[in-house]
């Protein structure tokens, strides 16, 4: 598969092949990151995160390929590792001097630190909501299914009750997110 094929597949939502192929970069990137001070545990996590980031970026129809995907992936990984190390630096030492030039080899890559933090918070919130809610949100927001489909698939008596359920789920998610963010920004409160 060429990069072009991979991108097409990702944009179609067919992730299996791309993930498997991109994962072939893992050993190389791992070695690379090990040298830069990552541990296996962290590297594995970062790599998975980087795949998600990459897939998210590529999924955007306006994504333009300016470098090889593998290069791009390596860049994201390096960046994430450095970011991780930087975060940890408050608590323990960083083994190498941290240089802030990691974005150079990452054209088109934007990383909104604040937003990413928030996404992490929401990610953990999504873990806490009801299983039913998770499913609805997954169907609706990721698979882009219709409410008719969801109502039928999940055995709701009517489309309307599925809709109501969905909004309740969202309301809950919003509420939790809101609390978290407020808490996050004002730890004293």
């Amino acid at each position, binding site marked *: 598969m060429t990069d072009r094929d991979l991108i097409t597949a990702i944009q179609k939502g067919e992730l299996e092949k791309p993930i498997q192929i991109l994962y072939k970069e893992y050993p190389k990137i791992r070695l690379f990151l090990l040298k830069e001070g990552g541990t296996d545990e962290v590297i594995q996590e970062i790599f998975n995160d980087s795949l998600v980031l990459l897939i998210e970026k590529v999924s955007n129809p306006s994504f333009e390929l300016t470098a090889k995907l593998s290069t791009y992936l390596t860049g994201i990984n390096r960046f994430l590792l450095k970011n991780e190390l930087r975060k940890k630096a408050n608590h323990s030492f960083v083994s190498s001097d941290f240089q802030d030039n990691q974005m150079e080899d990452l054209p088109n890559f934007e990383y909104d630190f604040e937003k990413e933090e928030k996404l992490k918070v929401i*990610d953990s919130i999504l873990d806490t909501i009801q299983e039913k809610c998770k499913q609805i949100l*997954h169907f609706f*927001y990721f698979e882009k299914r219709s409410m008719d489909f969801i109502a039928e698939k999940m055995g709701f008596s009517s489309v309307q009750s599925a809709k109501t359920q969905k909004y309740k789920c969202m*309301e809950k998610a*919003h509420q939790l997110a809101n609390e978290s963010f407020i808490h996050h920004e004002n730890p004293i409160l």
Partner: protein
Amino acid sequence: MRADLQTLERIEAYLNGFMTSPEKEQFETELNNSNDLQTLLENQKLIQQAVARKAIMAQVHQFAPATISSISFWTKFKWPIILSSLLLVALVGFSFVDMSQTEKENNREVEKHEVVELENGKQEKKEEQAIPEQSVSTISSDSVCETAEARQNINSIQVEPPVVHSIDKGVFQGIGLSFNEKEIIHSNDVGGLKTWITPKKQIFTINPNQSNTIECENGTVIIVPKNAFCTKNGDNITNSVDLEIVEALTMADMIAYNLTTMNDDKALKSGGMLYIQPLVNGEKVSIKSDRPMHIEVPTNKVVPDMVAWKGEVNAKGDINWVEPKNLEKFLVPVAFNTLDLKPNGFSNAVEAGLPFKTYTKSSPQLIDSLYYSLSGLTSQVSEVGNDFSGKGKFMPVKVNTQLNNPSNFKPRRGDGSFRRDFITVMKVINISAQDLAQSTIEVQGNKEGDFCEFYIQDNSIYIYKKASKNGLHSISIQTKCSEKEVFTNIPITISGRHRSGEIEYAGPSCKACFLDPIGIKTVISNPFENTFISTKEFETRLKELHTIPEAQKYYNLYITNLTKNLYEVDQIVADQLSDDKKSIFQTFADQKLTNVDNDNINQDAIKAYYNASRAMYQKEVQRTNEAYRTANEKDLKELQSKLQNVETNYADEKAVLASNTSQKSFSFPSISLGFNKNISIPKLGVSNSESYKVAWNSTGWMNIDCYLHLLGKNDVIVAINPQEKDSDVKVYQCINVLKTVIPLAEVEGKMEAHFPEKGKEGSMEMKDTYCVGIHKEKEQLYYSEKQYNPYSENEIQLNWNPVTERELYNKLVQLSPINDVLAKSLKEEIHKITLEQEYRNEKKQLETEIQNLQNRIAKENAFIQSLIDKINPCDPDFCDENRFIHYEVKMEQ
């Protein structure tokens, strides 16, 4: 903010483009006007994104290739076998019966992997190895006999009652792939063998262009290397190959398949049988002799002396086992992550020492990284190919003619005066007496701030290095050439360890005591994957090596002799050792374990790789340790400089305050006293206005205006009699409404204070007022204070008391906030006190932090030391960092 359902619905519609233009406009207008709505929108976006990410992550986890897990195949109770030629039936581990005695004797060798190689006709038979033939009959197990009889009944062709003992207690539970019963029973599908029941044939279709690992139903593992098959003409096969396999691991299988265990007329004991037939489009194909398959047959118990036999099916469809092959003690490489190459007890030491830094839980990664990180601290790396005696490089010593005689050499400041906080390090220098007499040696640290000093005394050269406070330090010692040297390149032997960061360069009594973790990290990598390094057997040896002082050279022997058989290297090592260590390695050697697969091991390439990686890893480790050390030092420095800043700032601020206070508190910053040179406000008479005909004066025009407008024709006037005519008297009247004091002008020796007419605006506040008088006579201050009601008294007398400046100030302060300026002074005073408190707190906090950091560093050092102790088989006193070590300089006469 509440995210009601309707709002959410609208937000969603907006985000997903479900709104009509007017709706959208309306929504955007609302959006612009509502922060809450904006937040909701943002959160909605985030939630949608997070949901999508979660889904992607789930797929990443789902589709990520599983990590290599073939390890489970290589548990110790499986027997590996190599098949190199096409076999009709391969059976594993036939040995002769009555091995019970041998079994007992060999119980301790249970862990050994017995490997059998069957090469059709290629190697000489080794029947002489052991054929206890008719002793078969001595087997007395009832079940065995019964089984044998049962089988005899079935197979009348057998001449002798075959005594078969299966050591596999497994129950036959083959599921098998479907196959045609008739075809199999009456055809040659299992090598022409006439079977009683349909064999459970398993068929695996494999791509011969890559290596394949097959796990059969009953646990047999077959690894087929790539390009292993050829046609009868020897052509390589690239099309897919069907591998037919029948496992016969239990008695039931063997009987059912008519697999007797006979070698001509001698009975054998079976460890399991296997039928393997590769087919291409139904046509039998061959296995290349140089691309042998690797086969492991599971067993519950390893019986030594098992031999592999080749099956021959006779015309009647019965099998006879021929061409026994003696066991070649093969090794099986396993994945490195299944091996523990660290010294025993290391992991426990790590756990005991936790928490360490941010780590609270022990993990294999943590243990590994800690272990490898000790490299830089522990030993010097010697190049593979050297004699591994632990000696370092030779370094040139520069000699000049400055010194005539060593005994004249006196340590001078800068030359190496001996101080307590100096760690003694030592070089042994082989140098002639004459050279020594003429030598100066320069030693340099590798870092700014490091310095080494030395002196020569009594034919010894003492070299000192200053230890750093946190005990983590590295240094390299170099000698420098003077330009006019007489001799160059006089060798100095440097050996020794870094311990807790301090290096000790010492001679023979501080040897390379332990295996360099770098060396171990280096081998855990690709080039060594298929060598005996990556075997359980080597792991066993390594555990022993860890306990031997100076093990590096033995370890290196293994690394550098990868192509030799393991037992040969064992022997070399055993020969160099003594006592119980010798016997341990002699036992290893006696096991006669050979090597891993016959893969061409490129010794040179691996060696080169080894050296290069070791150098690289060492650099890396040094860098990390350096970073670690620097980080600690940096933290300390940062805290210390913070503390210093706090102290400096405090001192500065205090100085400023003090100067303010000295001006203001004692010379009345807020109230001008007339006699003070610094007085700028208020000035008497500045605002004396005829039109108002009042003698009130103040600096605050606005305030005065405010007050003065209260005054009218019927002012109440109180005369204030200072009763002091000679000296310079100032009297200040408090004006309650304005919360200020105003100096009063003197009229004929008296001051007049004006107040609003009784009952007029402001008069209420004036009821309880007071005036303050101050005068100075011959450097003595006098103070007077009088409280009165202007509406009941028309003249008051002032009584004076001598006061010091401080007392005066305090009195003024006590007047309560009658005056903003006074209050300000008071505030400054309070501020000063607060400042001091804050300073003390901050200082204390920083000092505590420094103390904590120092404690932490000390604790970490102790932890690292505990780890080093675990991996260092030498007596800890051996390299005691506080010991003053010196060695004789060898004099060549």
